[in-house]
């Protein structure tokens, strides 16, 4: 019965304007964001710019992190934290600022007066100019003066930064696991070549394209399934078919799961053919480089990366709409989506606990490997949340079916 119902639900979606609107938005978004350019090529020696990477050099990590901390401190702006994956500003009290200043003193072995004065002198000789294309030119009359003392080991540095992170609060940028994010450096030719080879041999080209595909498509899939879940529940209400369906033999689990799975299938249905476009690019790049392609990479990434997002967003909208029989799920879903997109830590290359993990880079296999464990935990977590929400939906549906709940309230049906 479940399979037959899923087929019928899918057939209903095939006649729905919501489904076609979704397909159009998906394709337009893909074409506007991903379609132009995006060919990976071997780096040429002597090029002016190979892009940026994050350094593994402990000294660079220590100095860069200290520099960012000092700049944050002297600017007197609130500190950025991401307590549950979302941005939150923290303003420190005077006592807390003194504690942070003391940590800086221990790191650079300079008194507060000394390093504050050194920063003032640096800023006097610092200027930034922008040309007509928005490119910036930085001019420094003296080098950055506050660096970690050579006698400080990386272990000591980590301990002190943990103290700083503890003062600022949970999810601070200065936490142990985020220190590397401060060490952005220009890539060398050797690094660029190594990264290119990683894409060819470890990623089999298609892996790199699949990641950026999931990064972009995940943005859409973090929001649009909300409309499907909401529309499906409201369709029963608007068409006045609830009682007819309730009175049929099919169990609540069969009804709810068939509708839920049909939405998930219909959401992923256009995603997989769309992935053939970047896959064709990957095949082109691989052939040009004379290496093999993992043809299943997109399917694997779609299941591992995108499916949990779809499962969660659909389950959330289904549960909330089944309970309230209104548009609340769309409003809340849009707010969660906004927060997930615009308030993410570390910009566009981080999983964290975000509903929509980002990896807005074509390549960078090494960096992706660093965040992979967190990404896997993130995806498992959202899948578990989705299953819990589905269970809650099932309970709500069963209670409504027995007349205990009506539109989220204890039944007040005073029918004749």
């Amino acid at each position, binding site marked *: 019965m479940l399979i037959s119902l899923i087929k019928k639900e899918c057939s209903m979606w095939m006649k729905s304007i919501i489904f076609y609107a979704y397909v159009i938005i998906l394709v337009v978004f893909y074409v506007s964001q991903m379609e132009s350019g995006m060919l990976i090529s071997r780096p040429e020696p002597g090029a002016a710019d190979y892009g940026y990477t994050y350094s593994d050099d402990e000294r660079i990590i220590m100095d860069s992190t200290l520099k960012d901390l000092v700049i944050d401190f002297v600017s007197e702006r609130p500190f950025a934290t991401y307590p549950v994956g979302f941005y939150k500003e923290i303003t420190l009290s005077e006592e807390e600022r003194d504690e942070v200043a003391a940590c800086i003193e221990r790191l650079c072995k300079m008194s507060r007066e000394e390093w504050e004065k050194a920063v003032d002198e640096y800023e006097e000789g610092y200027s930034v100019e922008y040309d007509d294309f928005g490119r910036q030119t930085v001019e420094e009359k003296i080098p950055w003066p506050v660096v970690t003392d050579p006698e400080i080991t990386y272990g000591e540095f980590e301990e002190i930064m943990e103290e700083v992170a503890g003062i600022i609060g949970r999810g601070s940028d200065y936490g142990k696991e985020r220190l590397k994010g401060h060490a952005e450096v220009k890539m060398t030719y050797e690094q660029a070549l190594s990264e290119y080879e990683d894409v060819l041999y470890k990623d089999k080209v298609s892996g790199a394209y699949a990641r950026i595909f999931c990064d972009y498509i995940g943005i859409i899939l973090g929001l649009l399934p909300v409309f499907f879940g909401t529309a499906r529940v409201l369709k029963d209400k608007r068409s006045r078919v609830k009682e*007819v369906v309730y009175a049929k033999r099919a169990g609540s689990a069969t009804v709810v799961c068939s509708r839920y799975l049909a939405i998930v299938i219909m959401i992923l249905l256009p995603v997989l053919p769309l992935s053939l476009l970047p896959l064709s690019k990957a095949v082109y790049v691989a052939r040009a480089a004379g290496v093999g392609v993992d043809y299943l990479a997109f399917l694997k990434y779609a299941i591992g990366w995108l499916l949990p997002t779809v499962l969660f967003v659909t389950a959330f909208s289904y549960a909330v709409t089944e309970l309230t029989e209104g548009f609340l799920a769309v409003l809340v879903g849009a707010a969660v989506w906004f927060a997930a997109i615009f308030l993410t830590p570390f910009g566009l290359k981080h999983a964290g606990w975000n509903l929509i993990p980002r990896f807005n880079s074509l390549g960078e296999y090494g960096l992706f490997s660093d965040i992979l464990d967190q990404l896997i935990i993130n995806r498992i977590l959202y899948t578990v949340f989705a299953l819990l929400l589905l269970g809650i939906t099932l309970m709500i549906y069963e209670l409504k079916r027995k007349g205990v709940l009506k539109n989220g309230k204890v039944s007040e049906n005073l029918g004749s």
Partner: protein
Amino acid sequence: METEIRLEGVCKYYGRKQALKDVTMTIPTGMFGLLGRNGAGKTTLMKILATLLKADEGKVSVCGVDVKNSVKIRSMTGYLPQDFSMYGNMGVYEAMDYLGTLSGMSKKERMERIPVLLEKVNLSNNYRTKVKAMSGGMKRRLGIAQAILNDPKVLIVDEPTAGLDPEERVRFRNLLCEIAEERIVILSTHIVGDVEATCENIAILDEGSLKFVGTVEELLAMSAGKIYTAEVSRMELEKLKKDYIVTGMLTKGSMVDVRFVSEERPFEGAKNCDPNVEDAYLYVMNEKGGETICL
């Protein structure tokens, strides 16, 4: 196996309001009419039988199965709600196929049974007609077809003729009578004519209480000798309305032929006549106060 529905001391509350008050009755095979005003508790009772509501007190069994066993009850009942509808952009056949799947029917069973039922309800030429394009009568016929799709032992039909034109109503009643062979059909209505034309057994509900349970003949016998007709002037009519329950009127110029209930001959010129179900219904509803009559 039992082929009747039993209700014992059934009560249902909505907050402080008691929608059903200690309802006890047995519903045998055949057409059973549930009569009562709007708000009498008919729909509540029907929904309890269809497992869409839980009784707060009392016991209900359908053909020997406790109504708490909702899975089994749903597999042996068909339900046509008061305001039946389906997804507007579905065709007739598609709607039946969808609901047949929800009823647990295999594809083969659906393919065999749906055309037969659509023929039976005179929708065989409307397979592709969208639900949103159907008239009220066509929708009810589709409703009854979907309710008997799984060949249920019990068919629960809530106010099926409300809003239908006279021709559609007669056709629908005949259809229900055909279906009622060898199964229990419970017809809830506030239209006495529907019950009179189709049901052998009836129950009358008033404000959640059972006022009468028995056969139509028994109901008629109760009011035998208590229904009168008289020709009165318009002036006299007003006084008569105040003193008696008027069950019918026919205006003839300045005079009016009045049909009314009276325990004894009320005045000179009033003629005793045979009661119809409407007379008997009004007699029970107005004369018998709160007492339940189970015959």
